[in-house]
């Protein structure tokens, strides 16, 4: 099995990351935003794993596990806020949150 070139892995990661980021920008629903964030973080995870395998080191995987933890923590906080948002505005539309400007 030939190794997948590192460049391809990075490209894939970048594309995934971009997709996730676009998701954050275009989705109005808060839940989808959180999901897009997950996509971004997982894209980073792919990049780490690819790089780790390229260098034949465990560091990449370690980082990936850390990222997973982070993602979990973030989602936890995010969902809590989401419930509060639903509670307060009866909506998950992020665009309603613009009371502070200028």
């Amino acid at each position, binding site marked *: 099995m030939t190794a997948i070139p590192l460049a391809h892995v990075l490209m894939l990661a970048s594309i995934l990351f971009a997709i996730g980021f676009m998701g*954050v920008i275009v989705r109005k629903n808060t839940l989808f935003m959180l999901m897009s964030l997950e996509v971004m973080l997982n894209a980073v995870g792919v990049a780490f794993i690819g790089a780790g395998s390229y260098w034949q080191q465990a560091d990449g995987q370690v980082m990936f596990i850390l990222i997973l933890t982070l993602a979990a923590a973030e989602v936890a906080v995010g969902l809590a806020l989401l419930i509060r948002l639903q509670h307060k505005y009866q909506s998950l539309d992020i665009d309603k949150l613009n009371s502070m400007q*200028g």
Partner: protein
Amino acid sequence: MELILTYLPFYPLISFLILISFGKRLSWQLASFFSVGAMALSAISSGVLVYHLTHIDASVITVHLWEWFNLSTGDSASEILSGVNSTVNISFYLDALSAVMISVVSGIGFLIHLFAAVYMKEDENFSRFMAYMNLFIVAMLILVLADNLVLLYLGWEGVGLCSFLLIGFWYQDKANVKAARKAFIVTRIGDTAMAIGLFMLFKTLGQLNIADLTQTAQQTWEVGNESAYWIALLLLGGAVGKSAQLPLQTWLPDAMAGPTPVSALIHAATMVTAGVYLIARMHGIFLLAPEVMQYVAWLGASTLLLAAFAALAQTDIKRVLAYSTMSQIGYMMLALGAGAWSTGVFHLMTHAFFKALLFLTAGAVILALHHQQDLFKMGGLLKKLPVESALFIIGLICLVALPGTSGFFSKEAIIGSLWSSSTAGPALWWCAILGALLTSIYSCRLFFLAFLGESRFQTSLHVEDSKLLRLSLIILAILSLFGGLISIDFDTVFPVSLSAHQDPSWLHTVAILTPFVGIAFSWFYFSSYRKNQGDNITASSSSLVIFCRNGLGFDWLYQWCLIKPYCALARLNRRDMFDQLIMFNAWYVKMLHETLSASQTGNLRWYAAAIGLGLVGLFTVIMVGVGSI
């Protein structure tokens, strides 16, 4: 003697200080006592000094009070080498020229003070008036006694300030205020030229002491030296401003807004002749610049004629006299330009006598007529005010220079010096003759209008029957008539003029006859004024006459060329363009603030997108950077 000289300007100064500090609290008697008394002291001191100077020994008396400042550039070695004494001292220098001046200033000053004490008695600001008059005398004495040009400049500006104060003495009238401002600013233009002249003198000669610098200049410069040319020209600028000569003459007629004693003292007898004094004093420089002397002569001649024409068309008695003053100073300038220094100064003195007399008498007339100055509303005063009329006639015959009067001696001397002078010549001689003719014509016109014919006023006369007033007038009249007999020895001051040329013999005859021609002409031409019945004469309103009456359009010219543009410029830029340029930055920052604030929408998705945009932007920068390397 030094002591007397030292104290000379201090008598009026002390009087000034007393009057100004106590102001209205002084009674009329006390105020007059101080001011007139101080002037009497000055006059006596001047007399003693002149006597000493002429009869005892010294040709020059100097007194050093204190060092004002030092113009040394610190490079003492070179200064010692060149022997330049660059200190500017408060020092007085009395020679024949300044002796004439101090006697005129303090003598006539005394008489006019005496007159004014009566004339202004009713004015509520009497003591302030007398204080200004005293201050003027102080400044004038400093001017003529200064041993260096900076001190002279002090006096020069001082008299200007007093003139300003006195023209605007009745400050509640806007016209007076305007006239005062005009006088100050117009003369200031000349003063500035003079100041530049001083700087140039200092730069080229390294000193400003008059006697020393004249000497140095004559030792180091050839005739026609360029520096001398410019310096003389600039000094002439100062003289022209102060003496109301072309092209800075416009202030003098307006200056008649001041009380009449002021017109007599400042704008006829003393201050306006300061320019003549300056040129006479600086003759050493002017001799090195014959071209400038020609300018002086021509300026004098043109002013002489211009003012005479203007005088012909005036309706206000004081304005006639003002133009006449201007014209007479033109004569003095002419004399100076022709190199006849002593005759110029002589005319200065005689003119001071008779013009003071004329003004004061006119003042008495005006007072009698309840401040009526319009000639066309006078008439027939000869019968009603015989004493004043007689005095006025004396003044006038001096002015037109009928033989035997003081004016005759001085004016004939001037005219006589012109023909063969290297810097004047026949053309100017003819100008002077024409001027004399015009002088007699406007004098006659004045006399006929005011004193002959029927009276054209209804009010009863207010006769001030004061002995003091009469006394001062009579002394002046005597001086006017016989002042021509005073002979002054200027040999120590001025170079002896070399009249090697023989003038044509008819010159004298023409000169003597001219005034009579004028009188004869007027007798017929102005016959309607002379024997008018009732109020059928009015001032001519033809455009030529009005043009002459308005001083031949100079006021109008300056209004449009200088004053209006300056005011417009000031008005346009009232908000300060530099400020606006700088405050434009503030506006720019504010715009930036508003733009950026608009980007703070509070919208989360936009914020996230902005991060993306930022990334793209920075990425571009990096890629461009990498690509360029």
